[in-house]
């Protein structure tokens, strides 16, 4: 039905639909499931996300390897201090950490689009819900917006850190969340794609360099900064900041940049933070 951002925008205009409406329609055609079934399936996804994004806020959850944990709780209890970024942003980072910590401790999460980047979208939606008093139905719709954007990127580029670096995981997650936030705020489909493009632009070239090859650090930090990226990208798009490069071309650029990254910066744990002296020390400690 649509393979590119441009096709998506054309269809939205032609049919006078939001992105999420079009994506649900596509899902219906593709799967044969009824609209109600599709939405209730997504409601289930939302429940998994809500659990993962809140579990570690008041409870220290430590990873299987012992390398990371407890940061969600730290940020959550700090957020009402005299902070720079305020309670909203700090609360969002705490929620992103929460899912990362649940994931690293063998808890249940929804890969969005991957397990490593699974903290960004849940935190973005949940934080928006708290701030704006949104119904679950609005969040479910927003998940379809996010899925539509993720699908276009998966088709034209990659959502795998091993292939495209962390820009393809945490960058894409932020892009999906940014677009979803725009539709939550009643922005237009083209504003949603601009937001997604901004999010990718902001972190273009981000490498994948997990310590000891484990999905923990710097993944957790990039989930926290990723949700912030989503919020500012949504705001920039809603403010109609100029998007000089169209979304589809940003996606293509991201893909080419990813391909150009040396293998050492694509999930092999041979470069970046993983290859620092301390990174290697930590690897020795947790692997054996």
């Amino acid at each position, binding site marked *: *039905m649509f*393979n590119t951002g441009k096709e998506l925008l054309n269809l939205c205009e032609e049919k006078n639909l939001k992105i999420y409406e079009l*994506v649900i329609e596509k*899902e219906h055609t*593709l*799967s044969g499931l009824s609209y109600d079934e*599709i939405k209730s*399936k*997504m409601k*289930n*996804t939302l429940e*998994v996300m809500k659990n993962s994004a809140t579990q570690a806020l008041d409870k220290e959850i430590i*990873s*299987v*390897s012992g*390398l990371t944990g407890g940061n969600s709780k730290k940020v959550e209890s700090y957020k009402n201090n005299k902070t720079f970024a305020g309670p909203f942003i700090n609360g969002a980072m705490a929620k992103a950490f929460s899912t990362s910590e*649940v*994931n*690293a*401790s*063998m*808890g*249940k*999460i*929804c*890969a*969005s*689009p*991957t*397990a*490593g980047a*699974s903290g960004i*979208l849940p935190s973005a939606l949940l934080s928006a819900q708290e701030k704006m008093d949104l119904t679950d139905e609005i969040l479910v719709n927003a*998940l*379809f917006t*996010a*899925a*539509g954007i*993720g*699908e276009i990127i*998966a*088709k034209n580029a990659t*959502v*795998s850190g*091993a292939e495209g670096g962390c820009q393809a995981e945490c960058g894409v997650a932020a892009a*999906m969340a940014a677009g979803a936030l725009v539709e939550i705020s009643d922005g237009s489909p083209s504003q949603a794609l601009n937001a997604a493009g901004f999010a990718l632009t902001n972190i273009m070239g981000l490498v994948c360099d997990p310590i*000891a*090859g*484990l*999905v*923990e650090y710097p993944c957790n930090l990039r989930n926290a900064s990723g949700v912030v990226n989503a919020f500012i990208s949504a705001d920039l798009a809603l403010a109609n900041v100029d998007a000089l490069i169209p979304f589809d071309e940003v996606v293509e650029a991201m893909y080419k940049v990813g391909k150009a990254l040396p293998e050492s910066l694509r999930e092999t744990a041979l470069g970046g933070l993983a290859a620092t002296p301390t990174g290697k020390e930590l690897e020795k400690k*947790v*692997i054996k």
Partner: protein
Amino acid sequence: MKNYSSFDVLGPIMVGPSSSHTAGAARLGKIASEIAGQGFYKVEFYLHGSFAKTYKGHGTNKALVAGILGFEPDDERLRDSFDIAKSKSIDYEFIESDLGYVHPNTVKLVFKYLNNDDFYVIGSSIGGGSIVIININGIEIEFTGSYPTIIVKYKDKKGMISNITSIIADAEVNIASMKVTRDRDDATMICEMDSQIDEDTINNISNIEDLSYIRFINTKRS
């Protein structure tokens, strides 16, 4: 271009931390145990490549054991699988090894039975929780477990394939793909179908003479 479902992009719902090293490992364990059959008292896991290097930190070991116990990748009992295996008196062992030119996330599972020969299955976790089974007891094959699958072994003779496929056709099940490999007189047939098949059809196929082995893997794809 391949069409994605929204639930491919937002999914799988799984126990962390890694879709390839945890969710895929659990799926490998589950499908391998269905191929080998129940009743084993021990499973040896030969871990290759990245599986060998990072299995502890990714919980690949716990996920594999959960898989052979029949748990799905989103089952939160994954993290307690060692204790659950012990309570069922199922033993397990992890051995780092080199399985040759295979995908970096590959494992060989050797199932041990009291009154039967060992049975082994080799499979790889190829990303996003997807897997491929590449070897059953030395027979090179390839199937993903994404479709309901029948595996049969038989002494090769005329008409075998059509015997089997006509039973499937009578059940009005569509065959998605079919592969037959032959090692001297022994043929192995892997048949992937578009929908699940019922007990009766399974029995009808099992009743064909000269089958030395038959398994059905009625996977449900969430």
